C-alpha cells in the first residue's frame, strides 16, 4: 500500500441475530485505502459486501453487532459520537446506493434534495446552493439542469436518477465515496456512462472510492485494487492487474470462469460453480468455499486458511493456491 491510508478497516466483524440463529455477515475483515485510490469489492449476494460497506459508514441495522475498528482520516468511526458522525457524512464520507429510486425522497423535488444537503453540510445560503445545484447536475451530465431541479424523482429515468444521487453524493466534496452496486439496476450503455462519470469525478477531485459489485467485468478496468469476498471473509486481495493475471483463490478463478466470454463461440458450456454458498448461520469449521471447490481436501474442510501474502504482496486465503508463491524465501 502506497502512502498513508485514508481508510483502514481492522478486524471488522458484523453479526446479526436472526430467527435461525446468529448470522456472521462479516468475519474479521482488514482493508485499507489510500487517498485518491479505488478499491473494488467483489462478491455474490450474501457474501457480506454490503454489510461491510454499512459497517464503514456506521449505517448498520440497530440489532447488528460490530467489532473491530474503522479508522477514517485519523478517527475511529466505531467509537465516534452520533453527532460527530453526522458531521462527517457528506463532507468526508458519501455513498451511492444501487437503487436510485429508493435512495431519493419521492415527495421532494431534486432541487430541494440537493439544496438541503448543501445547506446542512456546507453552510450555504439557498440561492448559492441552488446555483451550485445546477452546476452539479450539469457536471454529472444531466441536460437542462435548471428544469430538472424542479422535477420529482419519478419524472426521471433510472440512469438520470442515479446521476442525481451521484450529484448529491459529490456535492460536499467527500474524501471517500462508497458506491454500492451503483449500476446494477441500469442498462449496459447507461452503466458504461455512470462508471465513466464516477471515474472522471474521482480523478478530478482526488477522491478515494470503494466500488462494490458482483461483476468482475466492472472492477477490471476501473479499480486499483480488488478484494474478493466469500461467506463474510475477504478471500483474496490484490492489485487489479495481479488479480486477473495471477489469482490464487480457486473461488476467484471459478467466478471468472462462470462469466460468459464474448470471444467464446455460442453453445460453449460454461464452467459453472456447483452448489451454492454456505448458510451464514451455520459457519463451517474449514474454508467456506471447500464444499464447492474442486481442489478441496480434508485440511480445507477442517481448518480455516488465513489471509496470507504471496511474494508480491497479494493476499489470499487458501491451502492450495492456484499459483504457489514460488519465489518465497529467495
Amino acid at each position, binding site marked *: 500500500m502506497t502512502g498513508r491510508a485514508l481508510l483502514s478497516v481492522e478486524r471488522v466483524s458484523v453479526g446479526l441475530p436472526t430467527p435461525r440463529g446468529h448470522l456472521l455477515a462479516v468475519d474479521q475483515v482488514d482493508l485499507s485505502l489510500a487517498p485518491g485510490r479505488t478499491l473494488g469489492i467483489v462478491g455474490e449476494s450474501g457474501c457480506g459486501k454490503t454489510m461491510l460497506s454499512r459497517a464503514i459508514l456506521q449505517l448498520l441495522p440497530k440489532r447488528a453487532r460490530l467489532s473491530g475498528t474503522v479508522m477514517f482520516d485519523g478517527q475511529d468511526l466505531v467509537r465516534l459520537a452520533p453527532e460527530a458522525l453526522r458531521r462527517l457524512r457528506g463532507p468526508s464520507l458519501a455513498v451511492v446506493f444501487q437503487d436510485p429510486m429508493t435512495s431519493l425522497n419521492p415527495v421532494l423535488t431534486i432541487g430541494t434534495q440537493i439544496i438541503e444537503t448543501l445547506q446542512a453540510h456546507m453552510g450555504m445560503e439557498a440561492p448559492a446552493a441552488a446555483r451550485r445545484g445546477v452546476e452539479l447536475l450539469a457536471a454529472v451530465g444531466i441536460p437542462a439542469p435548471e428544469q430538472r431541479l424542479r422535477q420529482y424523482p419519478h419524472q426521471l429515468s*433510472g440512469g438520470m436518477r442515479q446521476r442525481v444521487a451521484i450529484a448529491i453524493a459529490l456535492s460536499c466534496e467527500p474524501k471517500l465515496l462508497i458506491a454500492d452496486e451503483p449500476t446494477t439496476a441500469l442498462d449496459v450503455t447507461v452503466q*458504461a456512462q455512470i*462508471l*465513466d462519470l464516477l471515474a472522471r469525478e474521482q480523478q478530478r477531485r482526488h477522491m478515494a472510492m470503494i466500488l462494490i459489485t*458482483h461483476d468482475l467485468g466492472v472492477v477490471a*478496468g476501473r479499480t486499483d485494487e480488488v478484494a474478493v469476498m466469500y461467506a463474510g471473509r475477504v478471500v483474496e486481495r490484490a492489485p487489479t492487474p495481479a488479480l*486477473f493475471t495471477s489469482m490464487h483463490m480457486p473461488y476467484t478463478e471459478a467466478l471468472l470462469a462462470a462469466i460468459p466470454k*464474448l470471444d467464446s463461440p455460442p*453453445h460453449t458450456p*460454461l464452467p459453472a460453480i456447483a452448489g451454492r454458498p454456505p448458510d451464514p448461520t451455520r459457519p463451517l469449521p474449514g474454508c467456506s468455499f471447500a464444499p464447492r471447490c474442486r481442489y478441496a481436501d480434508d485440511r480445507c474442510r477442517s481448518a480455516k486458511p488465513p489471509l496470507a501474502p504471496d511474494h508480491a504482496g497479494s493476499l489470499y486465503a487458501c491451502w492450495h493456491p492456484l499459483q504457489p508463491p514460488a519465489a518465497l524465501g529467495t
Partner: protein
Amino acid sequence: MMRDTAVTDGSKLLEVENLVVEYPVGKKTVHAVTDVSLHVDRGETLGLVGESGCGKSTLGRAVLQLRRPTAGKVMFDGVDLTQLQGETMRLMRRRLQLIFQDPIASLNPRRRIGDIVAEPLVITGLTDRAERERRVRAVMTAVGLDPDLAMGRLPHEFSGGQCQRICIARALILEPELVICDEPVSALDVSIRAQILNLLEDMKRRYGLTLLFIAHDLAVVKAVSDRIAVMYLGRLCEVGPTEQLFARPAHPYTALLLEAIPVPDPTVRPAVNVPIGEPPSPIAPPSGCRFRTRCSRADRRCADEVPPLRAIGPGQFAACHHPLTTAA
C-alpha cells in the same frame, strides 16, 4: 468446444410478420413494437437483445397473445395465433411456454412445489394422479432437483437459482415446442447464472426445444444463441448469425451495445465513446431511424426515411442508412 447444436431442419417454427403493439396511456400512445418481422427456425435459439423499454418483452408476450398485437401476424407452425380465440388459443398455448425473470415472484408462495409443477397438467385435463406424479418426478429430475426432497416444500425454502429450476420444470412439463425465456438469468448471481444457462442448453437438446431468449446482456445471449436480433425503441435494428454479428456489427446501435459490455480483463480499457444519453420515449419516438438521436453517423436522411432491413451478409440484415459494414 462447440456443442452439437440441436436439430435445425431449416423450417420456420415461428414467424412474426410486421408486428405492431401499441397501447394507450392517457390520450397518448406507446409505440412498444413497431413493424417487427423475424422468424425462429425449429430447433434454433434466437436471442433478442435491447435495453429496458425497447419492446423485447412486449414482443415475447405478443407472440404468446398475452398482449394482443395491434397489427401483424404471429405464425406458429403455420397457424396465425392472432386469429385464434378462446379454447383454440388455450389448446395452442400448450405448445408455447414462458419463463420469467423473477423466479421467486413467479411461484405461488403458498403452494407446494409438486403442485406448482403439476398445475399445467391439471389445467390441460390430465386426471390420472399417478401419471401426473410420474411426469412431475421425471421433469424435476431432469432440471436437477430431487423430487423426494423438493415436491412437498414451499417456494421460500429454495434459493433463486433453485426457484428458476422449478419454473423451468413447470414450463417443460407439457413438452412444449417453443419456450420464450424472458431474462431468465438476470436476477441470478454469476455462479448460479452459469448453472441455469447450462441447464437451458441441456433441456433444449433433451426436449428438442426451440427458444426465443430475451435478455439485455449480450454476453449471456451470445452463450446460448444461434442467431441474434437487436431491438431499439420498438424497432428491429439488426439480425444475424451470432458470431458474425459480434465480429462485424453493421448497425451502430449493435456496435454501441458491444462496446458497452464490461470485459473482465484489466488490460482492456473500458469504452470511452459511449454517447451520453438514453433512448427517447416510445410515446413520441424520433422520425425516420429511431436511433438517430444518439448516433454519430446520423444525417438528414436518417430523420426523413425509416431505414428498411437490408442484407449485409449471409443471414445478416441491418436497418441502417449508413451501416458500419456493407454487403460484399
